[in-house]
Structures are given as structure tokens and as C-alpha cells.
């Protein structure tokens, strides 16, 4: 499996071949609290860099799924749409949100840089 990278918007991204899997970080789920609703984009939706393509709602607040580069959604995690608590219990695993194909190179943080950001 490829190395996990991060964004300053608290997403994690794993790129394998030309497909990137995106979710929110464990830090982000902890800050949100219990996730009760996840709104994910449709497959085939194209997006621009910095666009919010989904929402993660907790009892207390709303987080946005912000993409770091332009691209297109190729798959969404239907399991997490049905059971949003997966975002809390497995944020950086089974709680992934979307798979996308970027049409430009995203600028990402490595783990050390992300840890520093959230320290």
C-alpha cells in the first residue's frame, strides 16, 4: 500500500495507480465528535481544487470534505453512508469517503508535517 499523505484541511489521501482514496483524519473525527450523517458526491462528479464535495455532520458541527486538486469522483463508500459511525471508529481505514482520479498533481503533506500542524 502506498504512503498516506495529508492535507491541511484534515483529509488523508492514499494514491494507488491513478486512483486516490480520501477520508478525514483521526484528528478530524475526534474534533467533530459522533458523526451522524455523511453526504457524499455522486460517482462521475468532477470538481475543482479546493472544492467541498461532501459533508460530514456530527451532533455538534459540520465538516466539509475538501479536495486538494481538480479531478473526478470514481467511487463513494456506500457503507459509510449507511453507517456514519465508521468515520469515528475507523477514520483512516474502513471509514474512507471517496475515491477520485485527480487531473492535476495535489500538493500534500507528509505525516510528519501533518502531525506538526495538529500538535
Amino acid at each position, binding site marked *: 500500500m502506498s504512503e498516506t499523505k495529508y492535507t491541511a484541511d484534515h483529509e488523508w489521501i492514499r494514491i494507488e495507480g491513478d486512483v486516490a482514496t480520501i477520508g478525514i483524519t483521526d484528528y478530524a473525527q475526534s474534533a467533530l*465528535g*459522533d458523526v451522524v450523517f455523511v453526504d457524499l458526491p455522486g460517482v462521475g462528479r468532477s470538481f475543482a481544487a479546493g472544492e467541498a464535495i461532501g459533508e460530514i*455532520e456530527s451532533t*455538534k458541527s459540520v465538516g466539509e470534505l475538501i479536495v486538494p486538486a481538480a479531478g473526478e469522483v470514481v467511487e463513494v463508500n456506500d457503507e459509510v453512508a449507511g453507517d456514519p459511525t465508521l468515520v469515528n471508529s475507523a477514520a483512516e481505514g474502513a471509514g474512507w469517503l471517496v475515491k477520485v482520479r485527480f487531473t492535476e498533481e495535489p500538493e500534500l503533506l507528509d505525516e510528519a508535517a501533518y502531525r506538526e500542524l495538529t500538535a
Partner: protein
Amino acid sequence: MTADAPQPASPLLHVHGEAGAQLIDFAGWQMPVRYGSDLAEHQAVRERAGLFDLSHMAELRVSGPDAGAFLDHALAGRISAIEPWQAKYSLLLAEHGGIVDDLIVYRVDESGAAPEYLVVANASNRHAALDALSARVAGFDASVVDETEQTGLVAVQGPVAAAIVGAIGLESEPLEGLRYYRALPAVFEGEDVLVARTGYTGEDGFELYIAAHATESLWRAIVLAGEEHGLALCGLAARDTLRLEAGMPLYGNELSLDVLPAQVGLGRVVALKTKGDFVGRAAVEAGPADDAPVLVALTAEGRRAPRAGYPVLDDGRPVGRVTSGALSPTLGHPIAMALVEPASAGSDALTVDVRGTQLPATVAQLPFYKREA
């Protein structure tokens, strides 16, 4: 507040650290927002019991021969009529009728002694309430003393709260005889405790006031007694969803200096008929403007929560805003309170603008949740 002003702190702050609480700044206090899952904490209070640290709440002690007459003048309720060890929900109004704070007043003197009251105000309004009471006491033989930082406050709320509080070794009259909105004096490990059957969750429960230095010992005794009852440590996130389900207003959300009591359904709290002049009386008698917004309860379908500040529309026209909202953990659907134009308070064409999506909303009655008697 300036950067070098001393920050008040709960006497339980390090206990929360040990328990893994996530803390937030609340009116300058570092308080637990959740210990783990706020949904689990909410559910524990509905089904078993939860323990809350509310030491940030403001305790103002009012005493002196004129204490009752002073509070009749300073607050909207007829405080002089309450009996010793009775509690009363009341409002502190501005001269123009707006709400400075909502608070609970406990009468805490033995019969025959000089009257004494504990006025419990919101943490965010501690200074506003203290300033108003200190100004209004002029001319009365009474005193107002801020005891907030010398006082710890913990709440045990939920259907098994009485069993837990009854098992911590309080020296007091039997708790079984303590009715809702009544209090009794007790002693815990040699320290005075005010045990009140009050709360902000919609469940049976108790609020316990004790000296700050003894709060940790009381907290640990409650945790120990609660083990066999499934007591959960609860943060402010659960407290907020619990009070919203119970239809209780929150200062800063439903209540503010900009609303008169009648706008938010609290006209009954103002004693226009049973006492003379008091601060805000003329404005309350004049009433809110005909087009002043009124509080409504809203429910919706689905899983998307209306949240504070979201616009409310009537047939597409903006008519107000949400003051509090959540996906109700107990009911499983969205609930909200909103201030809307009076003409729209009964509309069947309301929607909430949830970040660009119109969520159809139905006007409901408060409370959203009522416990079985």
C-alpha cells in the same frame, strides 16, 4: 477579558484530564465537551444516569433582611413567595424588557432565620448578572456576594440518579421525599452540600452544590456509586442535545437582550399580577412589537440537522433563523427551535436552509421529548 486576567478553573479540571475528556473553552472555563462519544453520553442520561461538571455556573448569594424584596425588584418572578428549600426558575430583565440572564433561585435559609438565596446564573452571564444585581441592591438591606469560584457544582441526571445520589453517604433527610424544584441541606464528609432536584436534561436528577475544595471527593464518590448503575461521565455536548430535546431554552441561542420573555414562551415566568414594580415591568406590560419574532419548535425528516443561525423560510421567503438545532439522538430525526415572524409561526410551508438545501420543517410543540412519568 485581558490576556493576563486570571482564568477561573473548575476544581475538577485535572480529574477530567485523567478521564480523557476533550475540553473546550466555555466563558473562559476549560470544560469537558465530551469524554468519549457524546451520543453514548446522551443515551446514558436517557436510560441510566450521567454525571456533569457544572462548576462554571455562577453562584451569587443574596442575604439580608430585605433579600426577598430586593429579588422581587431585581428579577421577573415573585421570589419572596418561595419557601425555604424551594427553587424557582426566573429571569433577570433589562429595563427595556430584554433578557439579561435566565437563572435558578434557591431559598436556602431555615424557617425563622433571615432570608437567604442562592442565585445560579449562566457562566457566560456571570458578570452581567452580578453587575445588575449589585446595582439593583441599592436601597435594600441586602448583600450580593459572588461565590462562583468557591463553589463546585455537579449534576447527576437520569432515571437511576436517585439510587446513585442515595448511595454516596450523604447525611440528610431521605432523598425520596425531595420533590422536583426543591432542595435540602446535606453534609458530605463534613462539608455542607445543597442537594437540589433540578436539572437541564428532561430527566429526573439532582444538582449538588459544595465547596470547591470538596468537589473532587464528591465527584469520585458519585463515580464509585454509579459504577453498578452504568453512570456515564457527560460533557457539554450531551447537555446541549438533552436540553434541546427537553425544549429548554439556552441563553445566547433562544434568549438574549433582544427578546422579551413573551417572544420565547416565557411570559408565565414574569409575575405581572402578583407583585409591584420590578426592573423591566413597563416594557413587559407594553409587550413586544406586533412583528417581533416568536419562538417555534420545528421537526424535520431525514438526518440533516438545522443548526443555529440557519435561515428559516416560509414559502421561499426568509422569515427568521434557527436558534438551536440537532439531529435528535433520542428521536432520530432533526429538531430545532427558531425565532420566526409571528405570521409564520403556524405556517405549513416552512423550510430551513441547510447550507443551500431547503429542508421542509413542521411546526411542533415543546418539549420534543418528555420522560414517562
